[in-house]
């Protein structure tokens, strides 16, 4: 914080005091204002709050204590330093009780007042930093329907955002449930084509013939049952984006047909002879290892190169566990409204289980688990028993009776393991501040194991 942004307002009915104090403080680079009385000071606070107020106790009209009281009421973050010509115990006690940061007796010892002002500035910087940190902690990166706090995914989404602006083909890789279609939709929405259609085709859901007709369309009588002319998805997506999901599952014949379309930018309907030009941006996705499929000859190398212009890999949920609380919050909000239930949060125990789960089905599985939990829940807080998930072995609660301290120790160790030793994250789950958590880590002798995870040390005898 620059000193100029620290705004000090001096409130004193004596002009000489206002002048000498402002002249003295402005050499520190602070922004200084002066007010001859309480009413002016409060009006100046109304215009734009000041960070520090130096207020004379005895003033005609609204006196210093009253200014202090009103300022603390409306601007609690402003620090008020009371100046008094005669310090009596009563005035000092009164001022401090009303919320003054401190009081100084006129004339001040230069060192004393320097120190007090420095102390206030330092404290306010901390308060401000805290607010910024809290905001940063809360800060989520949003790319349409995708939200994250994970630095790795954030970089991925930034890449997608940039890629969206270009006409290039995008290949989205990732396990099922990681949000590949959401990303494809986001890319479309962010692209210059956003006003044109977004058409999604799941290549694994259809047989080869059906998929062929689905993609390229067919002419009347092209095959049995082709009663009329049918426009394919390529034509439907003209000017927009075609999302080809599970591209790794298409047959060799379709791979060749698709390659031809991508190269020529023209489609020929099944049973047709005329090639129709199409202007389509392709976003393809797969949960398969395409490189390996190419090596094993199951996927055409030339098609792979055509698709693999910009590759975006979505992380599995187990590699971005920091997003779980954020996703839970969002899903609870969405699902509560969809299911017309008032579920506001999950209990710390339930959150610990959610954080510990491996999530093979990724974000989709998380959403499903929460949906189920909301359905079976009976109050505003989802409890562990609603989730239908169990703790992994080793994290189970002790079967034999244990002291409260012992349970706390084990619970902290378990949460730290789940967060891979991330104290900030663990403190958030435990709903205590980091300082308290560090104290408890020390108290219980929890130490980092070689793999960086916390483990309880053998209790000292």
């Amino acid at each position, binding site marked *: 914080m620059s000193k100029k942004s620290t705004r000090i307002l001096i409130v004193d009915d004596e002009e000489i005091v206002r002048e000498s104090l402002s*002249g*003295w403080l*402005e*050499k*520190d680079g602070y922004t*200084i204002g*002066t007010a001859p009385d309480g009413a002016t000071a409060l009006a100046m606070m109304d215009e734009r709050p000041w960070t520090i107020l130096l207020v004379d106790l005895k003033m005609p009209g609204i006196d210093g204590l009253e200014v202090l009281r009103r300022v603390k009421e409306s601007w609690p973050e402003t620090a008020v330093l009371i100046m008094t010509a005669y310090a009596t115990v009563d005035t000092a006690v009164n001022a401090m009780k009303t919320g003054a940061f401190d009081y100084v007796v006129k004339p001040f010892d230069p060192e004393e007042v*320097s120190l007090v002002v420095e102390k206030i500035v330092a404290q306010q910087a901390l308060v401000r930093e805290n607010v910024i940190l809290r905001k940063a902690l809360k800060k989520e990166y949003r790319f349409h329907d995708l939200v994250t706090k994970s630095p790795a995914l954030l970089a991925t989404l930034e890449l997608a955002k940039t890629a969206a602006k270009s006409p290039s083909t995008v290949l989205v890789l990732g396990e099922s449930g990681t949000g590949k279609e959401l990303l494809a939709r986001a890319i479309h929405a962010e692209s210059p084509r956003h006003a044109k259609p977004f058409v999604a085709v799941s290549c694994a859901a259809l047989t080869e013939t059906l998929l062929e007709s689905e993609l390229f369309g067919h002419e009347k009588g092209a095959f049995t049952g082709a009663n009329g002319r049918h426009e394919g998805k390529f034509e439907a997506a003209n000017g927009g984006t075609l999302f080809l999901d599970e591209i790794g599952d298409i047959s060799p014949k379709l791979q060749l047909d698709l390659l031809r379309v991508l190269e020529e930018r023209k489609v020929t309907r099944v049973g047709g002879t005329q090639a129709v030009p199409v202007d389509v941006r392709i976003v393809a996705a797969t949960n398969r290892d395409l490189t390996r499929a190419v090596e094993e000859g199951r996927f055409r190398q030339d098609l792979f190169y055509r698709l693999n212009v910009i590759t975006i890999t979505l992380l599995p949920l187990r590699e971005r566990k920091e997003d779980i609380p954020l996703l839970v919050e969002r899903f609870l909000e969405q699902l509560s409204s969809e299911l017309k239930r008032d579920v506001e949060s999950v209990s710390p125990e339930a959150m610990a289980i959610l954080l510990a789960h491996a999530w093979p089905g990724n974000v989709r599985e998380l959403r499903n688990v929460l949906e189920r939990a909301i359905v079976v829940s009976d109050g505003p807080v989802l409890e562990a028993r609603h989730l239908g998930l169990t703790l992994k072995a080793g994290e189970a609660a002790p079967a034999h009776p244990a002291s409260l301290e012992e349970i706390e120790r084990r619970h902290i160790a378990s949460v730290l393991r789940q967060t891979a030793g991330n104290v900030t994250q663990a403190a958030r789950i435990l709903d205590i501040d980091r300082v308290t958590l560090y104290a408890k880590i020390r108290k219980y002798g929890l130490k980092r194991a070689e793999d960086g995870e916390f483990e309880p040390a053998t209790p000292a005898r």
Partner: protein
Amino acid sequence: MSEVLLLWIGRDAPPADLLEGVRTRLVREYGISVRAVLSEERPEEAFDARRGQHSSSRILGWLSGRHPDARRVVGLTDADLFIPILTFVFGEAQLGGRAAVVSTARLGDTPRIPGEAGRIALRLQKETVHELGHTFGLLHCRDATCAMARSPSLRHVDAKTPTLCRACRARALELQENGDVHEQEEHANPDRR
């Protein structure tokens, strides 16, 4: 308008070499021409009988009305200085103005103690570099060893050097190149009521 005037306005005569020491220090720090003069006049009206001290602000007023040809007027005195809100000050300057004053009164014991004269002389150099810096528009520096560090006590004075840190030196040059700002901005400040 080119030189800075160093004016001794103390009650007693200054110790030998004191003025010359400050003069050479200012020349070295700011690369300016400085002339040291023993003033015939004294700012008598600056004495406050109630406090038994001299008002540094009144001395600044007195100094700024003198020697209009000088670029800056820096008064040096042995009188104990104060501003109304503080018990004492080592010195005071008009920020971006033309007058500054520094006193030896709180910079040490009597110069008659062996070694003390040298200490006082060095402290005076530090504080004069500091106050003259304010007239050029320099603000307090966070670097505790820079001459522009705030020094509310002798400990702070002793912790700093008589020289400007690199940042303050660069800023001083910049301020001097951009021309002297004599006008006190506070008069136009709507937040001073």
